[in-house]
């Protein structure tokens, strides 16, 4: 434990907006004793908890195991307050006075951090963690020491001696064993057993791995042999000589294929490669060959297309030429027979003119015939066929002449002429159609032939004769095709065979390796340097674990020794205070050290060795609680550590004699360190009033709003 350079103690308390305190209020402590006396709800406890809050902050209202459970929902701020909550504790420190101030904002949330500030002599100001560190450095209380040797709270007083862990911790503190116990606790946290379990687990896994590694090769051998059997290959082929032959054969077969399809040298197997290297290469062989064969197959397809196209173009040319000659002959025959289309069209125009003339003549003849018919009608109507019905002149034979005229009118002749002309025009039209059709056939054939000739010309080298060029080109293309087909066939045949050969080769290689593993007992970890290194590490861990155990034992032994040195003094101190507080108590209290499997625990027993806490009445239990509390605080004082007692209503279950005894004990202790007490008016307070000295301060606390403190 860090020794305090100066025993810090509080001299004054300033409270603002804290619980029952609305606005600001201050209280100077007495040099030795400060008594706050008042009825219930007067605010006495709030003053004490203000000290506690100022020193320890949210720990006192935390609902965790470090806090006081009943204060889980404890409200810090005054409910009517309009400003922040602030408590300042003036401390006597080395070189003068310091002010420790804890502040909480008006709207601060429950778990929000407080502002903590410490002003030291020389205007040195510390804040936050600096203050916490300063408090630790000076040996001011932390939550544990506060509970054990500073504050006697009515909520937790009895737990201090009735709870085994608290009691043991309290007594161990009194015996000056905190450091040893802290060391033991720390060593226990390291858990050497974990190291052991980890090492055992690691070795166990390795042993299992080794077991598997040993079993696997033979299973592998059996599996590979079965696979070879399915391929009708004898397992005897896994010998070195046989594998060498296969290796060479694979390379020999692959090289010409690779060269033929243009594989780069790095993709070809080397003669000096080992069997494993050849097998590794073989895994990618198919894909590499396929990759190079794809463009070759494409090229072959293109080549075949060209040959088909050239042949087709060439073969179509002669029939087209014959057809063109036929078309020309037919066209010329028609022309010589019928004339040219222009002639025919001119003849048709002439006929069309004649037809028009004839049609005009036929119309006029029709009109004449109509007149003659009308004249005949008139004549017949007049009754005299020899006299003109108009001028009555003699017109003998008129009717007959009219009849003759009508009969010889010429209409039929004209019609005949018209029919003849139409017939002739039809013939001319047919001839013209024949001529145009022959012309079109000829033209189409000529165009088609020109196109074929152009296509063929495009395929032939420039300047070559058609027939010779075609022949030469076809020969070249066919030769190229044969070469390509040969290469592709070679590669295909190789792939077809190589796949099986590589599979067998791989199986044989694996069989040889598996046999070697099985034969050479692979997996014996004990021979591996890595295993030796692991063993060294485990040895180091074992050494470390043993050192930890030894340290733990040593801490325990030292604790025992230290306890033996202090136990008498502590017993005296407890019994001294017990005799003061409980004058009629007849038993002698002793601290008893008990060994358990893992630690030392401390109990309070009577002279018979019986556990005291289980048999005492409430008053005696409270008295014992107070006596051990004083003894613990006295131990701190003896160590030069800061100490001041804060007692909240310490007289519970105590009769007048016990209360007066407690007052005397308090008075005596206050000479060692300041004591601040809150209590109802009682025999205890009366006795303290009676014992009051100038260094004491007795106050009455009134619970009106705001709380008022009045010095008695």
């Amino acid at each position, binding site marked *: 434990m860090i020794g305090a350079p100066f025993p810090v103690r509080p001299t004054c308390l300033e409270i603002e907006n804290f619980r029952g305190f609305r606005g600001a209020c201050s209280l100077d402590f007495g040099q030795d004793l400060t008594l706050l006396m008042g009825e219930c709800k007067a605010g006495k406890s709030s003053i004490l908890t203000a000290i506690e809050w100022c020193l320890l902050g949210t720990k006192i209202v935390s609902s965790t195991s470090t806090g006081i459970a009943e204060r889980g929902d404890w409200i810090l701020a005054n409910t009517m307050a309009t400003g922040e909550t602030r408590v300042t504790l003036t401390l006597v420190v080395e070189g003068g006075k310091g002010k420790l101030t804890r502040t909480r904002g008006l709207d601060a949330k429950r778990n929000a951090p407080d502002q903590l500030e410490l002003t030291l002599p020389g205007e040195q100001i510390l804040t936050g963690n600096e203050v916490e560190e300063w408090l630790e450095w000076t040996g001011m209380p932390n939550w544990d020491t506060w509970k054990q040797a500073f504050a006697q709270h009515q909520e937790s007083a009895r737990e201090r001696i009735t709870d085994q862990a608290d009691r043991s911790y309290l007594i161990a503190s009194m015996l000056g064993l905190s450091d040893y116990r802290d060391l033991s606790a720390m060593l226990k946290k390291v858990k050497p057993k974990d190291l052991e379990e980890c090492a055992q687990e690691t*070795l166990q896994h*390795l042993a299992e791995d080794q077991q598997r590694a040993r079993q696997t090769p033979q299973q592998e051998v059996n599996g590979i042999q079965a696979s070879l059997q399915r391929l009708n290959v004898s397992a005897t082929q896994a010998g070195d000589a046989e594998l060498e032959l296969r290796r060479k054969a694979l390379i020999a077969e692959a090289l010409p294929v690779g060269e033929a399809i243009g594989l780069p040298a790095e993709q070809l197997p080397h003669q000096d490669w080992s069997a494993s290297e050849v097998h590794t290469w073989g895994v990618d062989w198919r894909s590499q060959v396929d990759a190079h064969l794809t463009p070759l197959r494409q090229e072959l397809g293109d080549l075949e297309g060209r040959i088909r196209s050239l042949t087709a173009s060439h073969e179509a040319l002669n029939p087209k030429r014959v057809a063109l000659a036929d078309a020309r002959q037919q066209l010329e025959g028609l022309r010589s027979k019928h004339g040219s289309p222009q002639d025919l069209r001119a003849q048709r125009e002439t006929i069309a003119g004649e037809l028009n003339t004839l049609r005009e003549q036929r119309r006029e003849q029709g009109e004449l015939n109509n007149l003659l018919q009308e004249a005949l009608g008139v004549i017949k109507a007049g009754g005299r066929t020899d006299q003109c019905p108009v001028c009555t002149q003699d017109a003998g034979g008129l009717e007959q002449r009219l009849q003759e005229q009508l009969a010889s009118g010429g209409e039929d002749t004209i019609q005949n002429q018209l029919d003849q002309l139409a017939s002739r025009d039809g013939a001319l039209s047919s001839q013209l159609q024949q001529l145009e059709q022959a012309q079109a056939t000829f033209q189409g054939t000529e165009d088609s032939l020109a196109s074929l000739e152009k296509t063929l010309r495009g395929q032939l080298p420039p300047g070559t004769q058609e027939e010779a060029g075609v022949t030469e080109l076809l020969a070249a293309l066919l030769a190229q095709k044969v070469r390509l087909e040969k290469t592709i066939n070679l590669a295909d045949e190789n792939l077809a065979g190589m796949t099986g050969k590589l599979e067998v080769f791989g199986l044989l290689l694996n069989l040889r390796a598996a046999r070697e593993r099985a034969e050479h007992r692979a*997996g014996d*970890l004990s021979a591996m340097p890595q295993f030796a290194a692991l063993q060294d590490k*485990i*040895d180091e861990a*074992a050494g470390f*674990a*043993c050192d930890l155990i030894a340290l733990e034992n040593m801490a325990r032994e030292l604790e025992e020794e230290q306890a033996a040195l202090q136990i008498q003094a502590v017993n005296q101190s407890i019994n001294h205070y017990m005799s003061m507080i409980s004058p009629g108590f007849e038993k002698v209290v002793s601290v008893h050290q008990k060994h358990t499997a893992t630690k030392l625990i401390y109990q309070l027993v009577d002279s018979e060795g019986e556990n005291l806490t289980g048999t005492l009445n409430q008053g005696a239990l409270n008295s014992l609680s107070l006596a051990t509390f004083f003894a613990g605080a006295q131990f701190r004082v003896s160590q030069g550590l800061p100490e001041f007692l804060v007692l909240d209503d310490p007289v519970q279950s105590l009769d007048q004699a016990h209360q007066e005894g407690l007052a005397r004990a308090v008075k005596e202790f206050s000479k060692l360190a300041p004591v601040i007490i809150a209590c109802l008016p009682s025999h205890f307070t009366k006795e303290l009033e009676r014992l009051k000295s100038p260094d004491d301060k007795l106050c009455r606390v009134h619970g009106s709003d705001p709380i008022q403190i009045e010095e008695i």
Partner: protein
Amino acid sequence: MQHETHQRLGEIRASVGMEYGKILQKILAISLLETKVESLVERSVQGIDLEMVIGGATCAFEVKTSEGNTIKLSRKDIEGLDRQVEAGNRAYIVVLTNGPLDDVIFARYHPGEIPAGKELSSFFFRAYQEPALQQRIKSTFPVVVDKYAQTAVEGRQGGLDKILAQYAEWGRA
């Protein structure tokens, strides 16, 4: 430990049952004798199984074997070892547990550091092991196990005693 050695020991253990501790003690004795010691004596007193003199120094061995990975020393074992230390000898607990990778551990005994009646794992004894002694039998122990496994199975302790009797440095007390 080599796999073959572990297998052999497993075969011996399966055959000899309760005698395994004594059998192993004799195999260890042969392994030590193979390393040219000045003398090696088998003791029948509690707490000590073998006493070896090497380089003028006396080493006392309490041999402990286990089917699991822990061993337990009785109060008498501890007292016997304490007496050896008081007599100025080097006392060792020779531990051989049954893990496939466990080796023979020669753990130096320091009075007060090893509790009696408590199951202690081989891991615990690693902290006290003496590499020089372990190195001494590293090569001979596997050979001896392999060589005399059949003798141990068929001839038991008597068979191994006959082998031990062939060494001039061997004695019984």
